């Protein structure tokens, strides 16, 4: 049983809410009698009614069909930890889910929880961020109610030098989730931007706490523009940006996207722990199609141009510069 955090409910209510959501989900569209629910949940019919009322308050549309029972009509637009947890069947990721209406940055919250010892697989999700983080002081536009802003705490037993491999794991999970929930094709730019037709859809930023020989924890920060409208983008963007809605013309259920993403992340992380970096690297390479491409890499101390030879076993970009191979550890890639 996964444990999520519900903003307003105690733990017993949480578990029951989740069971009810699971039942409605399994029997989508069916009318289920109060009596059947009361038997399945082991509570009185009055208690069933109370819980259904509770779900309505959380934004679920549950219709009561006289003399027949209840039917789930629609899930709320807002993000609900129980809704996400009910859709998960993961081993590690989502062991604990914390949903927030608004926070400064989910990475900050996750980092703090990790320092306090939160369990591996803790996921922090916010409906809005007031100071969404980008790389090196840049910001990530995080308007309310339309996108995904989440951070995942991992505690892998790998040396700090190998932790950069996790960057590639999370971006592959996001690419998979986009392709599983939309007809779009996600393309990965080194190391972990996701573009659709050349426009940036997702930004990922990871933070680590480590000692010389040991990773304390890694926070994987994931921002995906899901239902964001054109007017919600800031005017001064460095690169062309878009959302899944703008690319696909259809709104996407954010709870469904998150469930898919967390399941893919869980599977990839299990593979990583069992088989190492190899399979993740292979999938990343096939999705990025960078090999042999000419590129310019802009860093704070200047730019270099060369032919991309792939990535090494830490994920560093291998750039052939007139026969001399350079390992690139950071910077913005532009294909030429």
């Amino acid at each position, binding site marked *: 049983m996964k444990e999520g955090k519900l903003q307003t409910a105690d733990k017993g209510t949480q578990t029951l809410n989740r069971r009810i959501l699971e039942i409605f989900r399994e029997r989508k569209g069916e009318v289920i009698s109060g009596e059947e629910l009361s038997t399945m949940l082991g509570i009185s019919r009055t208690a069933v009614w109370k819980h259904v009322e509770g779900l309505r308050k959380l934004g679920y549309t549950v219709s009561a069909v006289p003399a027949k029972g209840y039917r789930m009509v629609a899930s709320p637009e807002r993000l609900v930890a129980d809704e996400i947890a009910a859709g998960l069947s993961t081993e590690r990721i989502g062991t604990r889910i914390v949903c927030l209406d608004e926070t400064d940055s989910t990475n900050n919250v996750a980092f703090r929880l990790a*320092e*306090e*010892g939160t369990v591996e697989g803790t996921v922090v999700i916010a409906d809005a961020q007031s100071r969404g983080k980008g*790389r*090196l*002081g*840049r910001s990530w536009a995080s308007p309310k109610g339309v996108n995904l802003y989440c951070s995942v705490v991992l505690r892998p037993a790998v040396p*700090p*030098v190998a*932790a*950069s491999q*996790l*960057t*590639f794991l999370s971006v592959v999970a996001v690419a998979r989730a986009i392709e599983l929930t939309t007809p779009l094709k996600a393309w990965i730019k080194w*190391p*972990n931007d996701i573009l659709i037709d050349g426009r940036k859809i997702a930004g*990922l*930023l*990871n*933070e*680590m*706490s*480590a*000692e*010389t*020989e*040991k990773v*304390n924890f*890694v926070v994987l920060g994931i921002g995906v523009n899901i239902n964001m409208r054109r007017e919600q983008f800031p005017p001064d963007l460095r690169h062309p940006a878009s959302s899944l809605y703008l690319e696909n013309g259809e709104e996407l259920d954010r709870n469904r996207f998150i469930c898919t993403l967390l399941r893919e992340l869980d599977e990839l992380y299990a593979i990583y722990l069992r088989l190492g970096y190899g399979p993740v690297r292979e999938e990343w390479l096939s999705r990025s199609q960078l090999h042999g491409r000419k590129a310019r890499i802009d*860093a*704070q*101390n200047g730019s270099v141009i060369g032919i991309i030879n792939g990535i090494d076993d*830490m*994920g*560093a970009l291998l750039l052939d510069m007139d026969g001399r191979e350079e390992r690139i*550890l*950071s910077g913005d890639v532009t294909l030429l």
Partner: protein
Amino acid sequence: MDIKDLKVLVKMVTETDITEFELENADEKIRIKRGTAPEVIHYQQPPVAPVQFPSVQQAAPAAPAEASSAPAPVAEKGQKIVSPIVGTFYRAPAPDAAPYVEVGQVVEKGQVLCIVEAMKLMNEIEAEFRCKIVKICKENAQPVEFGECLFIVEPL
């Protein structure tokens, strides 16, 4: 108990599920706590050399911390703070921001000294103890190797 024995003890404890370990006798008390917070090793035995934190490599070999060695060994001057990963060294949180630290500055335990980035994994390096920055060994935005010196500090 000398540093070597203490190391063995810490290793033994960390290889088990024990989260807290305490040992006390006439002249020393050792407490090892782990789990929620980053590992903290308390070692009380006045006078004693400070137990070195893992991300700090000593510039000079550690003075043995035997109970018999009378005056407290003075904390070594010029300890190195090294990079735990291969990456790019940044002295400031953003290109147009002021550096985290300057030479001569006194920093508190837990204060951020720099960022080392590898493949968009950002690693903030913090001071493990109160110290004064003696030297900044790398230029901003330069690559650093694993174990390479980033700062020389003087513990206070």
